C-alpha cells in the first residue's frame, strides 16, 4: 500500500513537471498542441494524486500499522468515521489532501477553459503546475506520508484526542483547503496575464466566479472553525485570535477586498495594478498561513508536529512574493490607465473605502501576528500579542466597515442626486436611530456595543430594503407575485447575492457584539445534589456516570437545569479520557437559543464524582453569528450560481449568436 502511494506521488510529480514544461514551451514557441498536452495532463495528475489519497485511506481503514502515519494517527479502536478523518487530522496526511484539492482545481481549470485559446490558458496552467510541483515535492521529500516503520506496532497511537472528539473535524479543514488552494486560480491567471503577449487584464473577467466560489469556501471554513472552537474546545468562546486563526483570516480579508475592487475594474477600468497586487497578496497570505501552521513557527492548537517542511515553505513563499510582486513592479506599469470617477458620493468611492478598511485590517492583524517574532529576532525578548490588542485595534475598523456595508449599496454608480440618496437612507437610518435610542434608555455602558448594534441595524435594514425594492419593482409589472419576486432575486444574482451577504454580515455582527459584551460566566464547584443559581437558572449537579467506549472513557456529568421552577431538562458536559493524552479533554454542553446560549463545561471531577467543578457561561446572541454566517455563505452561493443560457436582450448592439455564450448577457442593474 505504501509503495502504491509513493509511486503515485512520484508519478504525479513527474506529470506536474511535464505539464509545466509543456505549457511554458507551448507558450514560448506558439505551439498550441503543447499547451493542449499540458491541459490534458491535468486529468492524469488528478488521477495520480487521487490514487495516493486512496492508498492512504485504504491503509487507515485496514489498520495497516506498517505505515508510520497510520501508526501515529489511528488505532484499532478508533471509529471508522474518525479513521477517515485521520487522513487530514495530522500534518503529512493533510498535505496529501492539499495536493488532492490542488490537483482538483487544476483539472477543473483544464476542463472549464478547454475551449479557450491556448494563449489564455497556457500561462495560468504553467503557474498552477509550478505550485503543484512545490506541494508534490514537499510530499515526496521532507514530509513522507508513506514512510514505513521497521517494526509495525500491534496497535496505533490513535489520533490526537482533540481532533477526534467531534465530527466537525470532517468539514472544517476541507472547506478551508478549498478556499486556500482556490486562491491559486486568480493568482495563476493574473500572473499569466502579465507575462503573456502583452499585459492584459482579461484575467479578472475570466476568474471572477472562481474567486467568488473560493470566497464562499473560505467563509464557510472560517465559520466552521469558529463553531469547532465554541462547541468542541470548551473554553466558552469562538475566536481566540491565535496565530493560525489570524493567518486564516488574512486571505479572507484580502479576498473580500478583491471581490469589491474588481467591480471597479470591470465597470470603470480602474485599479488594474491594485487588483493584480491583491491577487498575488491573497495567494501569498494563504501560503503564509500554511507556513505558520506547518513550519512550527508560532505555537497554536493547530500547529502540527515539528518537521523539516518549514524552510521549504519559507523558500516557496519568498519565491511567490518576489516573483509575483516583482512581475507586477516590472510589467504592470503598462497597464496603468488614468482612473476617473464622477462623484465622491458614489459606489466607486465606497469601494475604495471598503478596500482601504479591509487592507488596513489585514495589515493590523498581520502586524500583531508577526510582531512577537520580530521582537524576538531583534532583541531576544519574548512578548505576546493577544486578544485584547486585536479587539482594540480591529473593532473601530469593523464598525466603519459595517457603515459602508449599509451605505455602499445605496450609493449609485457614478454618483447621483442627493435627493435619491436621502430617500433611500431614511428607512435604515430611522431603524438604526430608534434602536440606539431604545438601547440608550435601557442603560448599557458600552458605547462601542451600542454603536455596533446601531450600525448592524443600519446595514441590515439598508440591504434588506434594497432587495425588497427590487422585488417590488417586479411585482408592479403585474405578474404573479411570489414568482415575480423570486424571479427578480434570481435574475440579478450578483447584486442580490451581494446584498444578502451584507445582511448576513449584519446578523453576524449582532451575534458577535452581543456575545462579546453581554456574556456572563462563573466558576463553581458543586457537590453531588447541590445546586447553584446562575443568570436566572438553577443548576443542580446530579451526578456522574462513566461511559466506556473503545477509544476513550467518557465521564459524563449530569446537570439539571431549571428556571422559575420549570424543569428545563438536563445538560451533560463531559470529560474525555484518551489513553494517549495525560489530561482529559472536556466537551461542553450547550443549550442554544435565539436569544442566548447556556453553556456548561466541566473542568474537573474529584472524589469519584462526588464533587465537580464547572464553568457556566451565558452567551447571548451566539446563534445569530451562525445564522448570519450561513446567510453570508448563501448570499455568496447565490452570486456565484451560473446563469442558464439565455437569448441576448434586444438592447445589446453587439449581439452574438447565443450558441457558445459563457458570460451572462444580462448586465446587472443598479
Amino acid at each position: 500500500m505504501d509503495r502504491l502511494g509513493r509511486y503515485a506521488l512520484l508519478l504525479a510529480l513527474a506529470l506536474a513537471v511535464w505539464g509545466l514544461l509543456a505549457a511554458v514551451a507551448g507558450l514560448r514557441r506558439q505551439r498550441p498542441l503543447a499547451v493542449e498536452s499540458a491541459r490534458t495532463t491535468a486529468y492524469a495528475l488528478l488521477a495520480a494524486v487521487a490514487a495516493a489519497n486512496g492508498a492512504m485511506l485504504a491503509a487507515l481503514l485496514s489498520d495497516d500499522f506498517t505505515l508510520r502515519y497510520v501508526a501515529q494517527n489511528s488505532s484499532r479502536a478508533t471509529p471508522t468515521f474518525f479513521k477517515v478523518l485521520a487522513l487530514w487530522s495530522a500534518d503529512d496526511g493533510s498535505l496529501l489532501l492539499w495536493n488532492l484539492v490542488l490537483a482538483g482545481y487544476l483539472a477543473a481549470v483544464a476542463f472549464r477553459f478547454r475551449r479557450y485559446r491556448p494563449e489564455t490558458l497556457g500561462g495560468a496552467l504553467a503557474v498552477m503546475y509550478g505550485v503543484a510541483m512545490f506541494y508534490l515535492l514537499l510530499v515526496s521529500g521532507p514530509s513522507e506520508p508513506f514512510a514505513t516503520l521497521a517494526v509495525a506496532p500491534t496497535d496505533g497511537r490513535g489520533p490526537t484526542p482533540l481532533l477526534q472528539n467531534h465530527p466537525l473535524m470532517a468539514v472544517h479543514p476541507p472547506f478551508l483547503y478549498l478556499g486556500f488552494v482556490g486562491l491559486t486560480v486568480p493568482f495563476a491567471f493574473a500572473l499569466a496575464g502579465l507575462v503573456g503577449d502583452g499585459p492584459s487584464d482579461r484575467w479578472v473577467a475570466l476568474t471572477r466566479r472562481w474567486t467568488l466560489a473560493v470566497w464562499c469556501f473560505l467563509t464557510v471554513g472560517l465559520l466552521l472553525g469558529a463553531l469547532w472552537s465554541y462547541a468542541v474546545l470548551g473554553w466558552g468562546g469562538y475566536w481566540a485570535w491565535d496565530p493560525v486563526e489570524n493567518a486564516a483570516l488574512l486571505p479572507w480579508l484580502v479576498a473580500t477586498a478583491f471581490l469589491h475592487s474588481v467591480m471597479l475594474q470591470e465597470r470603470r477600468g480602474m485599479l488594474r495594478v491594485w487588483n493584480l497586487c491583491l491577487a498575488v497578496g491573497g495567494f501569498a497570505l494563504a501560503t503564509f498561513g500554511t507556513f505558520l501552521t506547518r513550519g512550527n513557527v508560532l505555537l497554536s492548537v493547530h500547529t502540527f508536529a515539528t518537521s523539516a517542511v518549514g524552510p521549504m515553505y519559507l523558500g516557496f513563499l519568498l519565491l511567490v512574493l518576489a516573483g509575483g510582486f516583482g512581475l507586477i513592479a516590472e510589467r504592470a506599469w503598462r497597464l496603468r490607465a488614468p482612473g476617473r470617477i464622477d462623484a465622491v458620493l458614489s459606489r466607486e468611492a465606497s469601494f475604495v473605502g471598503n478596500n482601504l478598511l479591509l487592507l488596513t485590517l489585514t495589515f493590523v492583524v498581520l502586524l500583531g501576528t508577526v510582531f512577537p517574532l520580530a521582537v524576538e529576532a531583534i532583541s531576544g525578548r519574548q512578548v505576546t500579542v493577544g486578544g485584547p490588542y486585536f479587539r482594540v485595534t480591529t473593532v473601530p475598523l469593523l464598525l466603519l466597515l459595517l457603515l459602508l456595508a449599509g451605505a455602499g449599496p445605496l450609493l449609485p454608480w457614478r454618483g447621483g442626486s442627493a435627493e435619491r440618496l436621502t430617500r433611500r437612507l431614511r428607512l435604515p437610518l430611522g431603524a438604526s436611530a430608534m434602536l440606539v435610542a431604545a438601547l440608550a434608555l435601557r442603560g448599557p455602558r458600552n458605547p462601542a456595543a451600542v454603536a455596533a448594534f446601531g450600525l448592524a441595524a443600519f446595514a441590515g435594514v439598508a440591504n434588506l430594503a434594497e432587495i425588497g425594492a427590487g422585488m417590488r419593482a417586479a411585482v408592479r409589472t403585474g405578474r404573479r407575485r411570489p414568482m415575480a419576486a423570486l424571479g427578480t432575486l434570481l435574475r440579478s444574482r450578483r447584486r442580490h447575492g451581494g446584498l444578502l451577504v451584507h445582511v448576513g454580515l449584519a446578523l453576524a455582527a449582532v451575534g458577535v457584539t452581543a456575545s462579546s459584551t453581554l456574556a456572563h460566566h462563573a466558576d463553581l464547584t458543586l457537590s453531588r445534589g447541590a445546586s447553584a443559581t446562575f443568570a436566572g437558572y438553577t443548576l443542580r449537579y446530579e451526578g456522574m456516570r462513566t461511559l466506556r467506549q473503545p477509544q476513550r472513557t467518557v465521564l459524563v456529568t449530569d446537570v439539571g437545569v431549571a428556571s422559575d421552577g420549570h424543569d428545563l431538562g438536563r445538560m451533560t458536559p463531559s470529560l474525555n479520557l484518551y489513553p494517549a493524552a495525560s489530561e482529559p479533554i472536556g466537551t461542553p454542553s450547550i443549550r442554544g437559543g435565539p436569544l442566548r446560549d447556556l453553556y456548561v463545561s466541566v473542568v474537573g471531577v474529584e472524589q469519584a464524582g462526588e464533587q465537580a467543578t464547572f464553568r457556566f457561561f451565558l452567551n447571548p446572541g451566539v446563534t445569530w453569528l451562525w445564522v448570519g454566517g450561513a446567510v453570508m455563505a448563501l448570499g455568496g452561493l447565490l452570486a456565484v450560481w451560473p446563469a442558464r443560457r439565455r437569448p441576448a436582450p434586444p438592447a445589446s448592439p453587439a449581439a452574438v449568436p447565443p450558441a457558445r455564450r459563457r458570460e451572462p448577457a444580462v448586465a446587472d442593474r443598479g
Partner: protein
Amino acid sequence: MTGGAQTGPAPAAAAAGRRRPRRAPLPVAAVVVAVALAAWLGWAGLGRDPAAIRSPLLGRPAPEFALRTLGTDRMVRLADLRGQVVVVNFWASWCAECRLEHPALSAAWSRFRDAGVVLVGVDFQDDHPSALAYLSERGTSWPVVADPGSRTALAYGVYGIPETFFIGPDGRIAAKHVGPVTYDQLVREITRLLPGGRGQADAPAAGRR
C-alpha cells in the same frame, strides 16, 4: 498603489509599438525590501522553539518557599538551605515524562547527597494518595514536598512539568531545565555549582568543561 499615479501612457499608445522598457525603479526596490524583510522574519521564526518560555529568573534570587513533605510532614525551607547547592524538581504522579527522569534523579542523589547537595521534589497539581503511592513504588529517598495552590510553582514560572531548577550556594537560580533531565545534565549542572566548579571564584578550576 491605486493604479492612477502619474499620467502614464494610455494602453492604446503603448501597444502601438513604443516598447521603451521603462522600468519603474521605486516599486521594484520596494519589492526587494519587502521580500528581504519577509525572508529575515521567516528565518528568525524557523529558528526558534515556540514552546519554550525563557525564564526571567535565571541569575536572580530563587523565590522563597516553606513547604511540608508528603507523608513525614517535615518543613523544608529554602532559606535554611542557603550555602548549599539545591536542586528543585517539579513533578507529578500523572506525568509520564517525570517517570523517565526518576532514575537519573535517583542516581544523582546517591552520588551527591554526601557532598551537601539537596534535592527537593515539589509535587505539582497532584493528590496526596497518588503521589505517595508513586513515591513508595519508586523508592524515592529525597525530600518531596506538597505545593498547595501551586504557589511555589507559580512563583518559579512553571508551565510544563517536569521542570528542574539548579540553585547555587548564593541562593540564585543558576540554571533551569524543562523536560526530563538526564543524569549527565544533572552531574554537569551540580558540579558547576559545587566548590571547585566554575561557580566558585576562590578555588582553582578543577578541569571542568
